[in-house]
């Protein structure tokens, strides 16, 4: 493989240094040259080591958690970035196209719906209204009312209906207008979606995607600010992923639709307007893998969804104070990518989990247990976990800010842990 192209791939895959959401647009192939100079020793190591011949193992060594085998899987490209053949100098050509996260979701949806006519969307106001967060805007005109099915307000029943449709040959995507509404569909999601493949002895598959916005927004009140990942994580048979950037939103959406398993895709209300430049070419991400956001040496910070951006904000402060944290967006909430996480723990020996879930029984609680169980000997310090308060999200602004983890808390926690 041409060496510049590989370098672009490698650096683009290891994303940008800590930046708040608005600067994420610089993530892709463009500024790789500058970044190498500033940046991580591991990138330089790659470029020196192998003479830039591609070997999967090299990538593995940096905790990318790339698919360990199966280079023949044509369709799934991990962390691919469009690399158009460069005509002129490296510096300026912006490849790919810029869009917002909800548009990235829509792009992924549209591509899959064009590719496979059995893919359909079922939910409230997904058709004519275009989705309460505009994820399906314009699609009903294009695909018709039956493929973007506007349902009555009956979550349990239309989720069950989607499950029945999935059993009999369709690939529905259920949109919960807000993730919290899916509490009404818990019966169908737990009993049928998760378990039916097993109780039928493998006869029926449920290739369904359940998605919707969750998380704490801007003073939406307690019931619209729920995090359901902790409730669903125990249901056997379900996979859960959380997207956090336009790039991974589109990739995970496509992967979830193509998966034969039932997948719950957690989006976040406040991330829909994130802007990023994503590749023009088609790409599908791996559902079970974590994403290395920023390589580092001092501590591993595991996070997902909106907290990724809080972490990256905190990392700016930490870097200026001389710390070198490694940030991993775990993306796959169930199952955990123990390979990527393990590699990171083996390198840094300290872990901090930053999540928006409640403290009690959240994703962090499970993750702590899994890390302790698998990598106890690698740890130099107790696993830190910053979670939301076990409090219904209050309406008042200052109180709401208190319930979720804020960057200063992350900085403080890292400082404490690094003292070990």
């Amino acid at each position, binding site marked *: 493989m041409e060496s510049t192209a590989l370098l672009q791939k490698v650096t683009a895959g290891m994303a940008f240094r800590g930046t708040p959401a608005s600067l994420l647009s610089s993530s892709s192939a463009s500024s790789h040259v500058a970044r190498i100079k500033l940046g991580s020793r591991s990138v330089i190591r790659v470029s020196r080591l192998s003479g830039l011949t591609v070997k999967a193992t090299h990538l*593995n060594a940096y905790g990318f*958690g790339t698919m*360990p*085998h199966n280079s023949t899987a044509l369709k799934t490209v991990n962390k691919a970035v469009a690399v158009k053949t460069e005509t002129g100098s490296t510096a300026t050509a912006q490849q790919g196209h810029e869009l917002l996260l909800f548009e990235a979701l829509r792009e992924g949806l549209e591509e899959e719906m064009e590719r496979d*006519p*059995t893919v*359909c969307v079922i939910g409230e106001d997904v058709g004519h209204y275009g989705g309460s967060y505009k994820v399906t805007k314009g699609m009903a005109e294009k695909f018709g009312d*039956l493929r973007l099915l506007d*349902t*009555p307000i*009956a979550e*349990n*029943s*239309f989720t*069950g*209906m989607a*499950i*029945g*449709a*999935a*059993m*009999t*040959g*369709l690939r529905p995507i259920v949109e919960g207008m807000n993730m919290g509404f899916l509490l009404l569909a818990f*019966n*169908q999601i737990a*009993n*049928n979606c998760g378990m*039916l*493949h*097993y*109780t*039928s*002895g*493998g*006869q*029926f*598959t*449920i*290739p369904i995607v359940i998605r919707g916005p969750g998380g704490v927004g801007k003073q939406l009140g307690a019931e619209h600010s729920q995090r359901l990942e902790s409730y669903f994580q125990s249901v*056997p*048979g379900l*996979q859960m992923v959380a997207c956090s950037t336009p790039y991974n939103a589109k990739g995970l959406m496509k992967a979830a639709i193509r*998966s*034969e*398993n039932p997948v719950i895709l957690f989006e976040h209300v406040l991330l829909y307007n994130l802007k990023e430049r994503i590749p023009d070419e088609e790409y599908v991400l791996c*559902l*079970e*893998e974590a994403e290395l956001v920023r390589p580092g040496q001092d501590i591993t910070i595991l996070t997902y969804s909106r907290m990724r951006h809080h972490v990256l904000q905190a990392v700016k402060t930490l870097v200026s104070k001389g710390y070198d944290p490694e940030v991993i967006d775990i993306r*796959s909430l*169930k*199952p*955990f*990518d*123990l*390979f*990527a996480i*393990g590699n990171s723990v083996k390198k840094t020996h300290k872990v901090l989990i930053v999540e928006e879930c409640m403290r009690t029984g959240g994703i962090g609680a499970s993750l702590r247990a899994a890390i302790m169980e*698998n*990598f106890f000997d690698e740890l130099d310090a107790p696993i830190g976990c910053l979670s939301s308060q076990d409090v219904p999200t209050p309406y008042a602004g200052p109180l709401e800010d208190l319930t979720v983890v804020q960057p200063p808390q992350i900085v403080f926690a890292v400082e404490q842990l690094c003292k070990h």
Partner: protein
Amino acid sequence: MAMATAAVASVRLATTNALPRATQRSRDNEACSALNSAFFKNSIPSSSRSSRKNLKTLNDGSRKGICVRVKASTSDMVKEKALPADGQLISRHEGLDLYEDMILGRAFEDMCAQMYYRGKMFGFVHLYNGQEAVSTGFIKGLKKADYVCSTYRDHVHALSKGVPARQVMSELFGKATGCCRGQGGSMHMFSKEHNVLGGFAFIGEGIPVATGAAFTTKYRREVLKDDSADEVTIAFFGDGTCNNGQFFECLNMAALWKLPIVFVVENNLWAIGMSHYRATSVPEIWKKGPAFGMPGIHVDGMDVLKVREVAKEAIARARRGDGPTLVECETYRFRGHSLADPDELRKPAEKAHYAARDPIAALKNYLLENRLATEKELSAIEETINELIEDAVEFAEASPLPPHSQLLENVFADPKGFGIGPDGRYRCEGPGFTAGTAQV
């Protein structure tokens, strides 16, 4: 009971001003009886008074009730039918077919009870004795590609649909040769080959699944442009389920999108120990169909010929794209709710009343009286079925239990869902994975 004349009378299915059969039953609950009579005679709930102004002409052109008086819906399909020229509702071949299916259901369930008490099967087992007419009457009118969706009382639905008795019995014994590899059990009978969509433990859970299967048919016709897609789905459920939200939500959606589905209520008057009249404000379930814009039919579910006539109409209606139907079958279960139910609340008089209306005995009399079959032929059928059941038990006994390695199979359709392990490989690829743990 003179089935022939009763059968003729029954095809006039609109129970217009006649009291539905429900109130003709002897009941001990005086209060409910009085309530119902009062309702039928003169009560017009105020909500329906005002809604009289809003009576809309519904899809198929008939004006259907918000109930002003006690009127069932008078749908187009409901009319008096003339008997065929030879005066027979059913041919000999069809009659024997129905008889055999009902005998299969009864014999199988009786054998289940025996096996349960001998410790061959465990847990909750819900038997269908007495309700065979509903299963046979409806499912024998379906094609193999049509879907059936049931509840926990699903053995006989699976059998009628064509799942071999061996597979069902093995499943009950928890053996690897069961239709669900022993992973489902009594309450989760599934068959992809015969399009049995379950088998659900929670009531009401299966109704949306059935609605989804009907939606797939409509989707295939209209989006995928597959004109051969005309599968009908039948959802079976009980009277207790008819107070559950999923029932009403699905009636609404099915009528809204004119899905090819038939909702069959097996009203056996009891939800474990809860009498239907103690749980339901308006006990006539068929009335709830018109509230959502579909015909609501009430039929004697102890009479397989009547059920069959209704089934033919409802299935044909769904198949030609006219939408859903709600059919309430008045039926009765001769045994308790499950094999663990002491069945103390039901009065002996009620049980005796329905025992006298045993659907198998009734069909037998009909076949004999109309000289469609001889005593000997019917006995031969019973013999054959008994042998079949014995064979099923032997097969189940001899079948192996599932190996430990089966535990983790089928949790995910794509076992990559178990994730990537610490060594970088997918956990499902590790040797001996299925004998390991599922921790993710």
